């Protein structure tokens, strides 16, 4: 792998994780805030709120995982390496 490809891969990996984690991070924070507020106001619905929060977190975090996987593939199994 030549040096330009290596440098571009490392920069792209960093951007993939960094930019890919912004949106899910904001979304997870806002969802957790809403869930904790909901549990505090309505403790009898805690099970349902936690279940919905778990499913929402799994969907949101998969976006981070996509970015992470792209970054790891670029770093450890780069298809553009000579």
């Amino acid at each position, binding site marked *: 792998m030549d040096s330009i490809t290596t440098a571009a891969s490392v920069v792209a990996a960093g951007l993939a994780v960094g930019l890919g984690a912004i949106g899910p991070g904001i979304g997870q924070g806002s969802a957790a805030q809403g*869930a*904790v507020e909901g549990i505090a106001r309505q403790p009898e619905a805690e099970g*349902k709120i*936690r279940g919905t929060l*778990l*499913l929402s977190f799994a969907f949101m975090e*998969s976006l981070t995982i996509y970015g992470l*996987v792209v970054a*790891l593939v670029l770093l450890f199994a780069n298809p553009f390496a000579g």
Partner: protein
Amino acid sequence: MASETVENCSSHDPLLDIDSSVLSTEVKSDEYLELQFRVFRLAFLLTIFSVGIAGFFWGIQASASLFIGALSGIFYFRLLARGVGRLGTSSKIVGKVQLLVPVLLVLVSSRFPQLDLIPALLGFLLYKPALIIQFLSMP
């Protein structure tokens, strides 16, 4: 009259209130555990189905990679569920430990030639169809 007095006493007895709140918390956590078990069961069924299909069409190596990926996806979901279960009680944030699972999966499958990367990643994502089915079947 006597029963009315007993009812009045019990409604203001703090000990009884605490007991009922503990009981309702157990019921709520049972509901949450039941949801997790349903998703795990669905994910296991999808894993068995997909591993069989992959083994039939693409061979034992792709099938083994898919199986390892699916197991790590289920483990990832278990860690995420534990983090969400702790939220608001013993922790204020949801931990990020579960994100180490896909990292380790990619590292392991890129280091070992017996494993393929793409089937392992597809297997890891098998928990998502289980989640979608569970989400659609929720009342």
